[in-house]
């Protein structure tokens, strides 16, 4: 596969390591009332989609960017690649 890195352009997937569902960016608030349950769901529950899937890739053999890649799990078509830090900020994460 070829991942179109937002900073570096098209790169072979071999340069990346894969983590999994981009929902791993949605780390719960440790002080919420049902923190344990939220963390349990965050850690273990995933949608197993046949189709478009947002997932985390790490450019380990490159610039060390974490990327959010939107990939069709049926065709491997990649429709968007973004810096994870940009996505995190857009989703309201900061510090």
């Amino acid at each position: 596969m070829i991942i179109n890195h937002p900073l570096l352009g098209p790169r072979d997937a071999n340069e990346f390591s894969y983590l999994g569902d981009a929902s791993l960016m949605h780390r719960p608030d440790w002080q919420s009332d049902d923190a344990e349950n939220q963390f349990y769901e965050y850690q273990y529950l995933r949608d197993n989609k046949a189709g478009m899937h947002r997932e985390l890739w790490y450019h380990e053999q490159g610039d060390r960017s974490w990327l959010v890649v939107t990939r069709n799990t049926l065709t491997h078509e990649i429709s968007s690649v973004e810096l994870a830090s940009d996505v995190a900020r857009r989703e309201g994460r900061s510090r």
Partner: protein
Amino acid sequence: MTQKNRIGGGLIDQNRSVQFDFDGQSFEGYEGDTLASALLANDVKLVGRSFKYHRPRGIFSAGSEEPSALVTLREGAYSEPNARATVTEIYDGLSARSQNKIGSLNFDLMAVNDLLSPLLTAGFYYKTFMWPAVFWEKVYEPIIRQAAGLGKLSGAEDPDRYDKGFLYCDLLVIGTGPSGLMAALSAARTGLRVILADEDFRMGGRLNAERYEVGEMPAADWAAATLAEFMSMDNVRVMPRTTIYGAYDHGIYGALERVSDHVAEGSEDVRQIAWRIYTKRAILAAGSTERSIAFGNNDRPGVMMAGSVRAYVNRWGVAPGKRVAIFTNNDDGWQTAHDLQGQGVEVSAVVDSREQTTLLPPKGVRVVLGGRIVDTKGRLGLKKIILSDGQDVAADCLAVSGGWSPNVHLTCHQRGIPVWDDKIVGFVPGATLPMGMAVAGAAIGVMTLKACLQSGLDVGNSVVEALGRTVSKSKTPKAQDEVSAASAFWYVNESKGRAWLDLQNDVTTNDVKLSHQEGFRSVEHLKRYTTMGMATDQGKTSNILGLAVMAEISGKSIAETGTTIFRPPYTPVSIAALAGRSRGKDFRPARLTPSHDWAAEQGAVFVNAGAWRRAQCFPKEGETHWRQSVNREVLATRASVGICDVSTLGKIDIQGKDATDFINRVYANAFAKLAIGKTRYGLMLREDGLVMDDGTTARLSEHHYLMTTTTANAVSVFRHLEFCHQCLWPDLDVQLISATEQFAQIAVAGPNSRKLLEKIIDPEHDISNDAFAFMACGDITVCSGIKSRLFRISFSGELAYEIAVPTRYGDSLMRVLMDAGGEFDVTPYGTEALGVMRIEKGHAAGNELNGQTTALNLGLGKMVSRKKDCIGNILSLREGMVRDDGLRLVGFKPVDPAMSLNAGSHFIGVGAEAKTSNDQGWMSSVTYSPSLETSIGLGFIKSGDQRMGEKVRAIDLVNNKSVEVEITSPHFFDPEGRRLRV
């Protein structure tokens, strides 16, 4: 007589004679011959025995689809089994031999299998040889494996070299027949970067095998002229002998180039290159493959594909027989008759399964319309054919044409499903193609010459436009369309003898019928039960016949029955080519410590730690067992001073205004108040609450930390920290960089370590116990101004330091320390002594931090802060992970001090039976402690912290060993830690 079947003409060079051997006999061929064409020229028809029944088999085709003529090439370590004679270029000195036989090829002793064939039908291994059950593994299977089969590997290391390579292009054209050449022309003339690949050593596809005219010259000449134009263009790379074997994601293709398979063994060339080709567009112009017709005993040597017979006559100037009969269900078979007769080869009959045709037969040739061949005769080679009316026709070669199947294989590698086309009677590519692929010519069902040229041009032009270029003014050369009517006729029902579908796996029409009768209705099941199409040829000449038989029995159409999915590789690719140079010591790179050369000079024994080579111990003269060396290194370190290269530990440099906050969140223990110039042990959890790693982190200045990780987890911890920063807390002001490779770090341990360091550290730096206390860290200089860092940390339990210098000084630092330490009898120690001392101190390492243990298990439960947000602390508090009766890391000593311990032993109560339900835990690390003069171990046992002094048995069922042990504190040596702080 030599080359009695050579009739002359063709595309071989009769001035260049080539000598080769087959089964020990010497033969002559010409440059341009394949092994198959040269054997046929020499009237060798029997070339092998079949897979299961050991039936005599000959050459069936003239290309990569060959199911039958598999031979072993070359000798000794260079030998290669299962090579297809039809694609093997001969060269002077080539030695080939037949395979899968006992005794001679003519009198194969295993041919008895053919008489046993009623026992060996589809799925036989599920049905026969079932009793007695124990015989399967010990008797039946080894015998069947010995009897069935293909050629054998030499067992010797492959002496050839292979490479991997990467290519980039705008357009990859796969196949160089009329449509491929035309497509490439249209693109190349616009300046696009084009790669043109063909599996054959002579490019041109069927243009080389036919007597057509293209552009008012012989087709092969037009192909050669067109290829010459490509060779002169800088933007075109022409790759003969290159099979595109797979279509992968995003326009990436796998290609195997056979660089020097056609050169005598031992050449300096790389043998094969596995290319990965990155394309913007690809045009599949892979042509089509002729398929057979099933009838009784249709597998005899001499029965061949009609188009291949034509290729041998036209391209290689070889008559595959003196008297050739034709059996066809389509117009194309007739062309073979015309070409044979045109070259003066006798054609004894044309048998067409169709009731009528408008085609004119070659002069004087008997024509049987509506004809059926029901049987053939000739033990080791065809002598005659029997028609359904009982008449026989003399023939030593039968040219069979069951129609042509488009080579859709690569269109299916990305889930594409071919669709049935009634008009051409074959599967054509479906609507879903791999990204960027277009298909031209026969591969998409365009079956005639002029139309193929036009198809190539059209598809080529459409790619040019899609890539934003202006279409060139290329036109197709003058050419004619040949007759090409096809019909659906698959097998001769009247045949009494076995009618073969898959020649390579010995599958007959009866096997397909049996499989249907036994309930295998899906084509994928049919395939696996009968093994049809599962051999190295992947059923290129036979699959559709099997589907058709299946469709007919089940009363469905072929379109409804569907086809099995094609997967890479298109033709076999050797593992050696895929490995390239990544084998032996080059399988992966080795990482060497900065003091590696020095350690090697000392005679160190090295051990692999991941990719690292680390000194395991430093044997001295007279030491006959590694244990002696290790004990000496431990005792010398504890008595005076030892040094050890610990550069392999991961080092992560962390800087930024929020560095403190960041570190406090990724470690489970408190880090918010670490003083500048101090180091602290850090425990890192995964988010699931299990321990990920541990190490020490030094605060070098207000906003600057240096974290260390274990050697094994250096990469994964760094990845994790980047994840935490970029994905969870993107606005924390923190920067991370790996510094593992940048610093050489040497542990200096033992009561005299300070005295030794004082000799090399520049005098302005005070490292006395008061000025530089336990866990202190700071920048210093050594040896008159070399910048270094000093950490007063200890893994050994002794007064100890780790000193870091830029990597380039690591070797010197080791030598300087050894020189300066002479008066203290300084001793280098390796990873074994390091391990002994850490077990004596009860420190957890890899065996304990195995990804399944919690801080509580390790006795570090109190370190996990509940007062801050940090990775893993919430889930570490889950009910099941904080049980009072959970596993705890404790120490174990044998009750009899003379006994040794085994890691991996399980703990069982003294009186209890050694079974799983009585299992209380396991021993994770053991060593002989020279300091305590007994074996000691660390292990996890239920409620271990509350069971000090209790005795249990450590049972190792693998080694049949049981030792009574006493539960102790894991801190065997200096449990108060007094030695650290002096």
